């Protein structure tokens, strides 16, 4: 019952956003009915299309989990972009660099190496925050830019296939690939597994309890003997790990190599998804699928209804808007019960 209640707000928000979007589409001269049917068709009709939607949802799930997990610990990880990037890059390097390994070893190895790279990239702002009080919003954004530059350099100087004009890693070995079962990508299932894993970690383990306590009240947490420094570093590392997995799956399961610019904005989409899911790891899954479905069918919407693909960005913003505003929450729920997550409350803490 509680689950249904907390799902009600995002569902109503989505409906309202779709209505507002319909108005915009109407004003721009196209037919909302055609547009929305193309939206549905493009993402869910037919196993192949459904598979593509799930494929697109996978990095969004991991990116959303990364941001959500960090939020639980009271931290703003805006660096998902960079962490994901390194994950993709290192996975790509490990994917082509090791030869002669059986799949059962090579694929997980490449995946985990990519995740480790993401974790390391996430740990840096964590350490800076814990030891020097450097605000993680700034350091993570800066590191995004550094990551982009560094990845380009690595691709140009170190890992480029001789003779390849484009800046990218060589194709990975077949033994490193993440396959699809029929049309369901294994990568999606891995992401779902991580979502449930994160939920379990946060709700059922003592470590998760410590992370949540630090996020909700770092003062009381340290009075209770929890080492906030240790938790901050670990939280950022895990957050980076999750983003790194997302990038790795993209390389190993979808693209087969690392290409710069392959996912401009995926890190920031993670923020949207985490906010939409109100930082609940399980809720990240439907949120990611929703956003992914809009991205997947954008071109079909353009083709069939003549609507510019960016309309989906606008609708996503509207969804976020309606989810976020407490007035709407209070309007539908007379009582004040339930967890109200305040993202802004930890901005000033160090």
């Amino acid at each position: 019952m509680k689950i249904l209640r907390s799902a009600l707000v995002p569902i109503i928000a989505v409906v309202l956003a779709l209505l507002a979007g319909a108005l915009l589409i109407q004003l721009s001269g196209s037919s909302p009915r055609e547009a929305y049917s193309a939206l549905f068709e493009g993402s869910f009709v037919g196993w192949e299309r459904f598979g593509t939607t799930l494929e697109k949802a996978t990095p969004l799930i991991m990116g959303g989990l990364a941001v959500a997990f960090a939020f639980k610990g009271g931290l703003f990880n805006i660096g998902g972009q960079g962490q994901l990037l390194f994950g993709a890059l290192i996975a790509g390097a490990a994917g082509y660099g090791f030869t002669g390994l059986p799949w059962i070893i090579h694929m997980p190895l490449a995946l985990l190496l990519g995740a480790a790279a993401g974790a390391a990239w996430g740990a840096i702002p964590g350490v800076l925050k814990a030891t020097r009080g450097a605000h993680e919003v700034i350091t993570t954004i800066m590191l995004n830019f550094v990551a982009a530059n560094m990845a380009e350099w690595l691709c140009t100087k170190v890992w480029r296939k001789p003779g390849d004009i484009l800046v990218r890693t060589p194709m990975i070995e077949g033994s490193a690939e993440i396959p699809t079962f029929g049309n369901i990508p294994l990568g999606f299932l891995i992401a779902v597994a991580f979502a449930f894993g994160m939920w379990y970690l946060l709700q059922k383990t003592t470590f998760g309890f410590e992370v949540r306590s630090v996020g909700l009240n770092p003062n009381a947490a340290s009075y209770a003997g929890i080492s906030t420094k240790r938790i901050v570093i670990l939280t950022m590392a895990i957050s980076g790990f999750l983003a790194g997995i997302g990038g790795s799956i993209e390389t190993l399961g979808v693209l087969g190599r690392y290409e710069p610019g392959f996912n401009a904005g995926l890190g920031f989409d993670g923020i949207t998804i985490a906010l939409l899911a109100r930082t609940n790891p399980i809720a990240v899954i439907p949120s990611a699928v929703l956003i992914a479905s809009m991205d997947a069918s954008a071109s079909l919407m353009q083709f069939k209804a003549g609507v510019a693909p960016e309309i989906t960005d606008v609708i996503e913003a509207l969804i976020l808007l309606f989810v976020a505003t407490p007035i709407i929450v209070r309007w539908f729920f007379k009582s004040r019960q339930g967890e109200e997550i305040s993202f802004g409350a930890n901005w000033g803490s160090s």
Partner: protein
Amino acid sequence: MNNQQAPLALEAVGICKSFGPLVANDEVNLQVEKGQIHALLGENGAGKSTLVNILFGLYKADEGEVRVAGEKVEMNSPHDAIEHKIGMVHQHFQLVPVLTVTENIVLGDEPTKKGGVLDFEKAAQEVEALGKRYGLEVDPRAVVEDLPIGYQQRVEILRSLYRQADVLILDEPTAVLTPQETDHLLEVLRSLTAEGVSIIFITHKLREVLAIADKVTVMRRGEVVGATDPKETNEEGLAEMMVGRSVVLRIAKSEATPGNTVLSIKELNVLDDRNQSALKDFSLDVKEGEIFGIAGVEGNGQRELVEAITGLRPLVSGSILMGEKEMSGCSAREISEEGISHIPENREKHGLVGPHSVADNLVLNRYFHSPFAARGIRQTAAINEEASHLVEKFDVRTASIHNPARTLSGGNKQKVIAARELSHDSSLLLAAQPTRGIDVGSIEFIHQQLVNARDAGVAVLLVSAELDEILSLSDRVGVIYQGKLVAVAPTDEFTRIQIGQLMTSGNS
């Protein structure tokens, strides 16, 4: 001075105010005459603060009227209240810590040169003159957060006087003052009434009502239960009106039988948050089976002392010994595991994680021990069982142990913290301001728990700004002044006046 024919300076008629299901004020009437000191008495949660917030325009009443000088007024914001010459001295000072005294006082009504530019010189002069006139001198250029609490209160009062308040509302003003400062404040109030200012004085301290008020209105659970002349009643009578039953004003306790020294602090030097010295060569011993009370005005090093003992603040030099073991340098968790329990002075900030459930908060110090956790996995059945047990034992009023702790009343929150800390196998209990801001019933309960702990052999170190609490509970008393322990003796060797002087100036 009290002219029965003149209109009332301020009147509340039939005020009703609810917050959701909670009725804070129910048909409340208050009549304040000109030049009168009118006490508003009630325990925490009775509705006094709500009433005065309505009178000051911070809240809007659901029903009822506010009348100034006999005429009904619209009170929609503090701006309106100030227009009607009503001023308020809040319990939690409404001062901006990083601004100066002058800036705080003139905020909103600043003397300016052309173009909105602040005339700092003029403002400082006006503030200085104002302070002199009312006996509330403060350095106009001092930054508020650097001032001791007593002086901060002067700034708060001057804020209202700067706006020529005719009615001055003071919300629990003596909570943070020494006896001497309290006397000084009462003198200031009397001189104000001589000028025709009317005073509304909120308090839960019966002694003060009898000492100063011309009239007292007693509130209980949102209603006015009576209004009388203090001369016609006594402490017991007022207490009974306040609580609705006869109240134990002093805990009965047997003679203490102290044993070995449990906590031994030697020559402690600690810095505060601004790297100034907070404790200077501080030494004290606490024995098992005794309650050692530290009296002192807030800001003299108590907070830093408690933080140093619990491992939350590093030492510059000195040692803290539990039995034979050196505790300085250990982590907070190690210290807790060694047998030190702690009731923090700020329950919201340090004592509870509000959004966590009552159950989670009850095991906040032991969540990682078995049976509450096994190999990193939390054992919810064991946690719930312990929580239910503690809630019953400590009479915590909550609809469910799974409700967030922040839904509890102040008194119940404090009981949760006490329950948690007293169930921990400890040899030393640190209680800092343990009954601040909670209802009488909970105060009685917590005091009894502290005495029980003492009788069971625990060493109790009590830090409190409520002198009555220190005197009624402690077996030995120490006074802290500017980071030093200036006097230590068994409780009955001190008089109230002596302690007050030690608290104010360090010598008696």
